[in-house]
């Protein structure tokens, strides 16, 4: 008889080599066949280690000390080689580019099957089947580098699924995807779960999607399993989430705040549709008022610091990345630059730094064409924090990393020391100044890069997807740094598709789609252009959709956050009906 459980973890603890603490501690967890288990937790909680332990890579590849046992389909992960476990457990990582190895889409699928000694005819039969299932049919001969990030992630999932594993483990597979890509990935997994009784274990920070798609949620904290339950149970445990630097879905957050205003809420919804229905219910029995909100954003009368005029850019392969982009950035502005993966956001930012030169049109910094600057000159005046911090880290200590550019720019050793202290203090990295940057968690590595940029005292700082892969605390910490810089008078541009994070920071939103600027307005107006956002595969935050539901009955301003939406509700005072 086949056990109902695909994975059983008994008192699992794990310590990495040369590490003093335990990455996992006393984990007891059973995973049912065919379930969708989401694993959430702050950065460094042990999510990745848990994923790697399910296919034996921890500890078979990493070494270290392992306690307890993990059984996958009855096989002990300590006693069975990882190559054998790979038949049962497919693994997909955060960055699809780190696991794609072949030179064509179909060869990528074939690769794992060849390694599993699958007969040729079987491989040939499975490739179209799996590509059809992940909606990559027709792209068989394409080089994976020609695919969008979302397509690459689907290809990585397809390669993992080609071996027909019973358990698919995904470690933050959606953190780099735009909102459309996130939902697409979740839907794809849900479809496979239903069609093949596939068990899915997925880590991530996408609270809204996890609430909607997962069957169960496990919460890890400092290597320990703190709670396991339904999305409803976990995402309404607000103090537990807060203690672990996690956020609930915005709809749950909104209703929690409504409840705090002494408005009776029967059950806190965690999914958007339930939230909309609950709003409709509340509207029949609660007074709706128009809350006070911050200004809609003012046009700064300062001088222009960055400007593009009729900017076009074509990549050498003919891809048109920017089309007639006209943008003016005033000194001291804080701009959210948003759009789907491949919309042209990073390409535009690289033009500001003269890393790319226009095919047509002009780019100016402080009134002067960027092509008249050397890249090093611009780099000291425009700080660019790249999406992947690891691409900007290349020294052997945090302090060296921060001082590297300063030394190359010829600052005196006294000045360098002062700036290092300032930057490390600002980013909370003083304690790890001698540590190798790669030994730090990803969130801290991003802070190292930001510290290195800050040390140059740039006038403009461009953050390219700074919150990718960060837990809520890490994301807010980085954005708070950006806010402090803004308050010091610096011009800030944040490239992001994490729309829910920006209302507390940005006043102006520039929305890009397919190389064009689709919208350039204040953030309240932008977030309420739902149809236009959809054109560039962005979904407005749930609070905006709840606000629009309220606005369909009662005139209210354009609201952005759960706090603002909750402020619309006040309990009816008895006896004054």
């Amino acid at each position, binding site marked *: 008889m086949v056990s109902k459980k695909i994975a059983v973890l*008994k*008192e*699992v*603890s794990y310590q*990495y*080599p*040369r*590490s*003093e*603490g*335990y*990455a996992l*501690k*006393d984990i007891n967890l059973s995973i049912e066949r065919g379930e969708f288990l989401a694993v959430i937790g702050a950065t*460094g909680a*042990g999510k990745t280690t848990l994923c790697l332990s399910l296919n034996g890579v921890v*500890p*078979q*590849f*990493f*070494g*270290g*000390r*392992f*306690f*307890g*046992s993990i059984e996958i389909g009855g096989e002990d992960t*300590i*006693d*069975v*080689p*990882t*190559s054998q476990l790979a038949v049962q457990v497919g693994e997909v990582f955060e960055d699809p580019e780190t696991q794609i190895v072949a030179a064509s889409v179909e060869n990528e699928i074939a690769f794992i099957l060849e390694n599993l000694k699958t007969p040729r005819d079987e491989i040939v039969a499975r490739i179209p089947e799996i590509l059809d299932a992940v909606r990559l049919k027709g792209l068989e001969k394409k080089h994976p580098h020609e695919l969008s990030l979302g397509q690459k992630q689907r290809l990585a999932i397809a390669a993992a699924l080609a071996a027909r594993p019973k358990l698919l483990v995904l470690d933050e597979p959606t953190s780099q995807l735009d909102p459309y890509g996130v939902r697409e990935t979740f839907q794809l997994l849900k479809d496979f779960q239903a069609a093949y009784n596939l068990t899915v274990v997925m880590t991530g920070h996408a609270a809204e999607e996890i609430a909607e798609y997962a069957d169960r949620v496990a919460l890890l904290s*400092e*290597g*320990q399993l703190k709670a396991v339950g339904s999305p409803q149970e976990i995402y309404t445990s607000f103090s537990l989430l807060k203690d672990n630097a996690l956020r609930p879905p915005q709809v749950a957050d909104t209703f929690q705040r409504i409840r705090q205003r002494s408005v009776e809420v029967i059950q806190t919804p965690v999914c958007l549709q339930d939230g909309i229905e609950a709003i409709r219910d509340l509207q029949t029995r609660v007074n709706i008022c128009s809350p006070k909100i911050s200004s809609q954003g003012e046009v700064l009368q300062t001088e222009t610091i960055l400007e593009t005029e009729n900017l076009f850019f074509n990549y050498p392969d003919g891809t048109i990345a920017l089309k007639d982009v006209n943008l003016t950035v005033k000194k001291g502005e804080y701009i959210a630059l948003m759009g789907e993966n491949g919309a042209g956001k990073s390409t535009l930012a690289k033009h500001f730094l003269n890393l790319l030169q226009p095919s047509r049109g002009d780019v100016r910094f402080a009134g002067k064409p960027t092509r008249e600057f050397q890249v090093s000159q611009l780099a000291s005046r425009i700080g660019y924090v790249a999406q992947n911090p690891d691409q900007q880290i*290349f020294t*052997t200590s945090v302090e060296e990393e921060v001082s590297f550019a300063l030394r190359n720019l010829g600052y005196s050793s006294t000045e360098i020391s002062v700036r290092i202290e300032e930057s490390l203090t600002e980013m909370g990295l003083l304690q790890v100044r001698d*540590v*190798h*940057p*790669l*030994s730090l968690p990803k969130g801290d590595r991003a802070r190292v890069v930001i510290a290195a940029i800050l040390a140059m005292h740039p006038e403009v700082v461009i953050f390219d997807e700074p919150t990718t892969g960060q837990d809520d605390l890490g994301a807010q910490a980085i954005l708070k740094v950006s806010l402090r810089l803004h308050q010091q008078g610096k011009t800030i541009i944040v490239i992001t598709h994490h729309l829910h994070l920006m209302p507390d920071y940005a006043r102006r939103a520039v929305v890009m789609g397919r190389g064009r600027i689709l919208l350039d307005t204040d953030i309240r107006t932008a977030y309420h252009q739902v149809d236009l956002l959809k054109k560039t595969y962005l979904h407005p935050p749930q609070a905006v959709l709840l606000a629009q539901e309220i606005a369909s009955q009662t005139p209210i301003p354009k609201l952005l956050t759960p706090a603002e939406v909750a402020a619309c509700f006040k309990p009816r005072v008895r006896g004054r009906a």
Partner: protein
Amino acid sequence: MTNATPPKGSERNIRSLSSTHIDGAPMAYIIALAAVVTALSFIPFSFILGSGGSFPLSQGVLGLVGWVLGPVAGAVSSGIGSLLGVFLAPHTAGPLPLMRVVGSVYASFAAGAMVLGQKRRYWWIPVAVYAMLSFAYFVGRAILLNGVGVGIAFAATFVDWSAIVLFILPTRKLITGWLRSSKLPQVMLGLALGTWMIYGITHVCQSAVIYHLQNYPEEVWATLIPIIPFENLVRAAVGVVIGSGVITGLRAVGLIKPEHAVF
């Protein structure tokens, strides 16, 4: 990470069950370092007197490959990397491409043989004996058969005999200790002297064969006196730059250490 109380589960004996290892080194490491050797084969850093061509920059990391992977896996990795290198980058393959490959294998094996513990503690001896025999043949032939002056012969082979001396004396263990140090300056010193030493003994083994075939005259020996040490300094510098990054990086990310790694 949590550490307050001992784990409840019983500790398991971890074994590497995957077949993708060679002599305790994961195949992924072997391939990665072979790729580094191949990539650096494209970059020439000095010319070869007489026959033309140039030396590949990969010679600076052959010791590192042995220290990271151990003698057997290191030799395999360097062998694969340099074999690909002589085909893909023939401009640095030299007049005897086979010697380039054999020399790479020997260098990484010698580096991996620099152990401190009991296991494989005598593996350095055949390496040293071969180097000394090569030196005796090389210099002996030059002086006795070809009439090269003793002073010129020893000056031109400074890199070779200094490397042999460093390898057979306790300095070999001292260098190994530095490579294992947690202090980066000591690691860098170990990489510099270690690369000098490892490529020095490799150089003499290769030179003995090449000299047997080519018998170059005393004028060439004299010209080589300043050139060879400079070239070996470049190798040592490459070893320090790449090696310190690789070793500190590997330590920092905490990946499993190959069983016979020296660092």
